[in-house]
């Protein structure tokens, strides 16, 4: 299990959603919802701290795998996160993704925090900084309108190059 104290937050994304905390929790943790807003991927999570966590391709293969670090419905869901399904990416150290759900007036503030245990290059962080706004904007649309948006997205070439370079030199071992 990850030594959480070694991880520091590098990417934070905040959005406010007109929905109750329980509904936002359900959208984050149920496959029926994630398929709609998370590029078609399905979450598969053992609903307890220490449980197994996957985000699966439509064909069932694991895209992301990890372990649940905190399962506190409907407030906090945190897990380790390894991009298992993509060559090279799978060799990077795992990161931690945490969702915090708080009441903010009549809306809910959803905060996504991506934390890392090593001095991760900006070019790799750029991938998450591109993806999270699309995923979480879509989650908000699904909860508020019942309908996701089709958004086209690929990992940026610079990110792929940076991942290859990091995997070749393994700076996290130094």
């Amino acid at each position: 299990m990850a030594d959480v104290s070694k991880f520091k937050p590098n990417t934070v994304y905040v959005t406010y959603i007109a929905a109750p905390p329980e509904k936002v929790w359900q959208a984050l943790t149920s496959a029926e919802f994630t398929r709609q807003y998370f590029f078609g991927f399905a979450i598969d999570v053992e609903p307890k701290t220490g449980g197994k966590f996957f985000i699966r391709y439509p064909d069932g293969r694991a895209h992301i795998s990890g372990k649940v670090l905190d399962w506190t419905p409907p407030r906090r869901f945190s897990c380790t996160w390894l991009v298992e399904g993509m060559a090279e990416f799978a060799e990077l150290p795992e990161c931690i993704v945490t969702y915090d759900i708080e009441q903010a007036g009549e809306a809910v503030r959803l905060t996504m925090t991506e934390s890392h245990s090593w001095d991760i290059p900006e070019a790799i962080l750029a991938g998450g900084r591109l993806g999270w706004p699309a995923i979480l904007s879509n989650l908000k649309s699904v909860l508020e309108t019942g309908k996701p948006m089709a958004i086209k997205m690929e990992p940026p070439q610079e990110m792929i190059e940076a991942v290859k370079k990091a995997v070749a030199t393994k700076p996290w071992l130094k």
Partner: protein
Amino acid sequence: MSKPSFVYVTYIRSTPEKVWEALTTQEFTRKYWFGASLRSEWKVGSDWKIEFDDGRIADTGKIVEFDPPKRLVIGNWQNQFRPEVKAEGFSTCTIELEVTGEAVKLTITHVAQGPKFIEAVSGGWPKIMSNLKSLLETGHVAMEMKV
């Protein structure tokens, strides 16, 4: 060392023209900007301000670029109601719109001289943009609360 900055991206199911109108029409901004509205003649060189309904001025600036419906740059952006933030001086805010799939990608890049301004806009932009997205997609803001 690069200047302190804050970037916020949101995707809105709308057209660039509608999002542009929502950003540059006083009556429209009033619906989602927490009891304030944006006032300007909306051309390059004109003054720009955020004014509360009671007449207090929140922020002032100047239109540096005005390229509808793609790119808006507000320069000399300075806070006017919190002395410690005002003391940091001018910031520059770039707002860009592009179509991607069924959505408009809205990117805000705010570059400031100091950390207090960035702290303030890091809290403010997600609220304002979440409200704008809700308003354009559902006809209602996510939160009515005032600042």
